[in-house]
């Protein structure tokens, strides 16, 4: 289908006023100030091209943000040869993944035997995780197996990758291989 373009009539209601008057009665079509100045909220907003994070069809999206950086709207990118502006229901809901009251946006920690999550500073958590990796690695590192050099640890495993980018996969793989982790898996298997 050819892209539909709309002839925008800016003179609010004037053209249709008289005819509607005949149909509906007296003073039927009184536009409020809000109506007279109504414009889509993305008018003049910053547009950023992104990609849908759900399935692997790879639909291109456009995210609109206002001057304060607040997300206003996410929709399909009409320029894309894959989706030509269209999106499925999940893609149409991308906005709700970023803007969501239920989303967790702070670092959380659950101590051994604890019944709850508690918030912790990011740097604390990173330091703690790095030292746990080091301890585990140092204690479980295997240099040889059946007389062959293996240089690995089987006590650390990693799962994930299909939902984040190739740069992230690359860095994760490079890091894990250098640590000696062999159980590196992602959803591609699943």
């Amino acid at each position, binding site marked *: 289908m050819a892209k539909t373009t709309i002839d925008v009539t800016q003179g609010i209601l004037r053209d249709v006023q008289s005819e509607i008057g005949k149909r509906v009665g007296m003073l039927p079509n009184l536009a409020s100030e809000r109506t007279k100045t109504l414009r889509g909220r993305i008018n003049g907003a910053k547009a950023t091209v992104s990609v849908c994070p759900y399935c692997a*069809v790879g639909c291109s999206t456009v995210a609109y943000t206002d001057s304060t950086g607040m997300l206003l709207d996410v929709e399909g990118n009409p320029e894309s040869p894959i989706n030509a502006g269209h999106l499925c*229901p999940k893609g149409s809901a991308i906005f709700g993944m970023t803007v969501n009251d239920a989303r967790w*946006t702070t670092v959380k920690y659950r101590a051994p035997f604890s019944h709850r999550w508690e918030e912790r500073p990011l740097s604390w958590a990173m330091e703690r995780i790095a030292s746990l990796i080091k301890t585990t690695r140092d204690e479980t590192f295997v240099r040889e197996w059946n007389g062959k050099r*293996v240089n690995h640890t089987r006590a650390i495993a990693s799962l994930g990758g*299909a939902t984040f980018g190739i740069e992230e996969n690359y860095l994760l793989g490079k890091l894990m291989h250098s640590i000696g982790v062999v159980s590196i898996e992602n959803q591609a298997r699943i």
Partner: protein
Amino acid sequence: MGRGGATAWVPDLANADCILIQGSNFAEAHPVAFRFVMQAKERGATIIHIDPRFTRTSALADIFAPIRSGTDIVFLGALVSWLIENKRYFHEYVSAYTNASFVVRQDFQDTDDLDGLFSGWDAASGSYDTTSWDFERDAQGQIVTDETFEHPRCVLNVLRRHYARYTPEMVENTCGIPVATFTHIAEILAANSGRERTTAFAYAVGWTQHSSGVQFVRCSALVQLLLGNIGRPGGGIMALRGHADIQGATDIATLYDLLPGYLPMPSALRTESTLAEYLASNQKKTGWWANMPKYVVSQLKAFYGKAATPENDFCFSYLPQLIGDHSMLPTTFAMKDGNVRGYFVIGQNPGASGQNAELVRSAMERLEWFVNIDSFENETSSFWNREGADPSTIATECFFLPAATVLEKEGTMTQTSRMLQWHDKALEPAGTSKTDLWYFYELGKRLKALYADSSDEKDRPILDMTWEYDDPDEPGEPGEPSARKVLQEINGYVTATGEQVASFADLKDDGSTASGVWIYTGVFPDATTNRARSRVGDDSTSLGWGWAWPANRRTLYNRASADPLGRPWSERKKYVWWDETKGEWTGVDVPDFPKTKAPDTPAIAGASGMDAHSGADPFIMLAQGRAQLFVPAGELKDAPIPAHYEPLQSPIHNALYAQEVNPMMRQWRRPDNRYNDSPHDYPYVLTTYRITEMSGIMTRYIPWLAELQPEAFCELDPELAVEKGIRNGEYMVISTALGEMEAKALVSGRMRPLRINGKRVHQIGIPYNYGRMGFARGDSPGELIALSMDPNVSIHESKSLTCNIRAGRRAPLATPDIEMAVPAQMRTTIGESVAHGAQ
């Protein structure tokens, strides 16, 4: 066929004259890609859907055939047989571009000879010696061929015999597809293939998640090759992958047995201690893979920079070695048995969507520490607080790191047609959320600091790995990594100058180039050009939009879109052809062939690399340049030709062979992984799937989606519902030997009982989108599925199972007995010693 990606470009489906959708609920799982199916339909194409359920895809298809889950090879094998017996295959294509004429070794024995097994079966080890699965060679070592197809052992005749008993009647009795429907479909496929017309196949996890998953896909390739539809517009096999970057995660390979770019991980099961040994055991002498040393060395240079020198084998010894199958399922058992101490789960939720999800969750209780990176609390992150668990007995130290969403970061994802697309950053991450890149980068920096003073040889990889990704554009936030810099390293550069490498043809094996992922070389060809960020589309192949590996090709093996002499098969299906005057391949796509290699170039006997292929051999990644109807030794573990085995859990006996199930499928028979061994107790076929409105945890918290499908449900046919006293909209319980789950009943005539060998078989279906958290919630069929897996790629079987059902609700979950006795011989202490090989 030699590469790990879909052969075709999604919009190309619109050019098909017929589309067979099987093992995929295309319209529901990929609605936007389905628009190309609809476009093809509007142009007159016939759409065929074969599926256990009448779905939204079926509703739009011209022909729907219900099939018993797990019997696809019978159907596809019958198509192979029908095409050969009725001589309806594309003769010129088959003889020129496939190994149909190759003669198979005399000592090869087929399933008909051995009642379901191939030659070389070793019952003791439970695996095949695949030596006999090969071609006969003459004195010069050249493969013996018979272009007349008369030799009884030529591949075409081997196929003919192998599938002789895969008749339309067998299809009716095994799959439940009536003979008339089968022959109707076969006629349509044959009529819409050949010079003038093409047929496309589309599949998804409905084929792969089986104990013979790889063979399902292989069998479809057989049909498509016989029909001559590979490498041609409107043809091919469209793998519809489920996750945004799942292709990228396969290419870059956060998979245990692969290094980025489909390079195998070094393994101590073979002898690969040095780079030379590794190359000796993995490099193919002929075809494109002869270039492998260049890619391996460049990758090691990318990993370890200046430390990697010719003298030290380019730090090859830094790479850990495999000692078995370290994939997710064996790792889960190892975890349960107390042999894994730390676990990262990033953007994945095995605690709900994993098979035997309770095993996964209870296994995690044995961890010392656990790191989850996600945007939402999920069943995995809070496994210690799940129904039935007692946190005060769980010692695991747990971290939840909040992840930025796709809009909050920049980077690249690779979609299902192997296309890389860069996305810009729209806004700052919410709260203290960080990108996954930041977390990995930060961990690497901290580990480098922790090991800074070490002189231990084992710590050299961490210290030597190049780790300079600070973003120059974010001066205010020191330590923010730059995805662009990482992508530049993935692309590759000249080590001396730091200049970007423009093509993987420029990579060297002497350490003068570095490239993280050779197949992606070309995406960032110079310092300022990010071709993943190309955004000029068009109505054809859109070569200006994104960048597809390899070398921006849309359709793989597109040399096959021209005849052996390089002319288009027909004007209608013109795509890539030989331009005699210019002396090069040309067309609407980037030719997947050496650009100036003329069609009449002869193969050089005994040569290595591409010289061993003629100008008419389109499948450049394969050793012989021909598509493999018969897969020779060493490439697949379980069969050179797909054979039908029943799913591990099936109410029906294998009608073809005494061998019931895939003899090589991996099983774990333990108290915490019980199979339905008595079909009598579990008489119904259970299939799982995903629905349009839901993904997983990424959608269950979004109210707009949650309201569309708010609760786990189970689809069943009205006859079964009446029989079991289950009422529409009310709760029902589905049970297996492993456990039970509850769901709301959705009684619909779209589900229908099949008549299999005179027996009435009911199938039920449960969506795989739910978990116990979020706005939309419910039990996951993961609670019902005992782990088992395909021998080739370690994929689990979750599409065809058996179960029992009843009306009502399940009992509350009890505290799991994590001390539940698993006998010592069943425990998993190391990576499972299942042989692994190159894919």
